[in-house]
């Protein structure tokens, strides 16, 4: 138990994980929905995935922590490297990947049978790990998800009693409690008011000091504010989704190479 606790703290200190997707293709049943996606996520970077609805951003995100394979009919080609190790190699336990690559879902999904505090600690319980000081962990995670002040007096209330936006921030706190190396966030701010959105964005910037973040967003300003690099996904009429342009966020927004990127970031379609 102590060994595990100290593992947790050391992993808080030395976390230099990078992620790379190479030639990823995705099928659902016979339908090809993502084609040849190759992206690199250097350690401590924040990457924004943008693109119109239905172009495969969430799908791509799920391939990065092996949640994709849980969908019936899912298929995959290509390789994902986490610190140069293929996460789909035979013998790799998907559970160990998901512990290192955390995820915040598009829809808030707190555990309704648990309290607010229980939700924050749920990741530890579910993976059968312990921490030295639960209260401190709960406070710091809730703080970083900018919800501590709203819930500090009712940590033992059921999670279902929170508003939708509060639930989403609770889910962010829940992922942070596991101290993942990589954090995948699927439109984490889509249910949030401007104030909470700003605080979540600050949190993302802070998190990038010790983890690698990939965030899906429909908000161009948000992509520009939080990310170092941006990938623009697009699925044209009847074609699978693919990456049109990938690069430094400032370049992609100020001087896009592709006219479709320019149209999209300037709100002319999608």
């Amino acid at each position, binding site marked *: 138990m102590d060994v595990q606790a100290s593992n947790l703290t050391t992993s808080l200190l030395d976390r230099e994980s990078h992620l790379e997707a190479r030639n990823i293709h995705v099928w659902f049943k016979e339908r090809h929905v993502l084609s040849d996606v190759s992206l690199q996520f250097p350690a401590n970077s924040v990457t924004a995935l943008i693109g119109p609805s239905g172009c495969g951003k969430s799908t791509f995100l799920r391939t990065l922590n092996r949640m994709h394979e849980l969908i019936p009919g899912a298929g995959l080609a290509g390789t994902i490297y986490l610190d140069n190790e293929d996460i789909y190699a035979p013998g790799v336990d998907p559970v160990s990947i998901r512990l290192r690559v955390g995820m915040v879902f598009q829809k808030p*999904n707190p555990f309704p049978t*648990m309290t607010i505090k229980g939700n924050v600690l749920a990741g530890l319980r*579910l993976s059968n790990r312990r921490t030295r000081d639960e209260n401190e962990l709960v406070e710091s995670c809730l703080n970083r998800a900018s919800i501590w002040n709203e819930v500090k007096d009712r940590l033992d209330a059921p999670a279902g009693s929170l508003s939708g936006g509060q639930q989403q921030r609770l889910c962010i706190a829940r992922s942070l409690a596991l101290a993942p190396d990589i954090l995948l966030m699927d439109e984490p701010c889509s249910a949030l008011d401007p104030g909470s959105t700003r605080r979540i964005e600050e949190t993302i910037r802070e998190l990038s000091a010790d983890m690698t973040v990939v965030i899906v967003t429909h908000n161009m300003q948000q992509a520009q504010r939080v990310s170092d690099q941006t990938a623009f996904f697009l699925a044209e009429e009847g074609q699978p989704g693919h990456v049109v342009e990938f690069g430094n966020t400032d370049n992609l927004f100020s001087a896009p190479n592709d006219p479709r990127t320019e149209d999209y970031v300037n709100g002319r379609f999608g």
Partner: protein
Amino acid sequence: MATLESLPRPNGGVTPWKVRSRSVSIIIVLASAIPAAITFGIQKALQVPGPIALLLIFLPIQLVSSWIAAAATRGRRGIADASLNVVVLFATTFVSIMLGSVLYSVINWGLKAISPHFIYQNNVYVTTTTSLDYGGAGHALLGSFLVVGLATVVAVPLGIAVAVYLTETRGRFRSPVRFFAQAMSGLPSIVSGLFIYAVFMASGISRPAGWLASAALVLLMLPTIIRMSEEVLKLVPGDLRSAALALGAPQRRAFFLVIFPAAKTGLITAILLGLARVVGETAPLLVTTRVNANTNVNPFSGDISTLPTYIFSYLTAGFDTGNARAWAAALMLLSVVAMIFAATRMLSNQK
């Protein structure tokens, strides 16, 4: 800044949509009183049986009178609503009366013979001439608890395990198993009894005993428990499963820490409905057990009485105190079923 004071809700007067004018109220009263009076009159004059009078005389008259009332108060648009209301209310009342009279006769006859000692005494020394002050169905109540309890202990873990297989795994045999469980829910109870008879009694493995009855009941409970538990587990949102797995939970821990707690009250309801399905079963018990006037606490050997077989044996015996004892036992059985359903309701209401 001025603070707003919250006002107490006044008695009445804050539901303006419920206010009715005097003339409308009078029309409503007349529209319900007149058909009832006419039906009553015709029924007295022609001596038609009650249910027929209700269906053929009251229902048409009530429909016409509600059309007139609706047209007078709400215009043409009210007529369709009025017909629907009358038919639905009539059907509900009719069914309630039918079910109510079953309940009434059991309670009415049962109360005549039941007494505290009837609930705990057994049937030893009871003959056709014994007064109702002696003897009871306590041994049969105990027998029912033993037989049904044993069946539950076996059927619940098995049934829930199968439901988990159907919902939580990608097993290859899910659809045949699901189909089989559904088909089994139509299994006639006498067939289940005969199956146990053929396997264990005709082959000489066992004499009639409580556990054989339990085995037959297990076959009857399983489909109910499997199907209900499957529905309950399916209701747990897929989002919760994903959330648990994305937090690095092995499937087993995700099930016990997230999915099972979310489905707990529903699973208990499934179990109680499985119980309710079999507590009153008679046919398989008649095939697999033999009644015993004495108390038998061992479901694994010897003759054992249960409430259904106790009722059956006294009903077929054909003497007055025997009939009375059967009604009293029926009342006990009905009370047990009522308690099971009350428990189900309480559990599904608490959230």
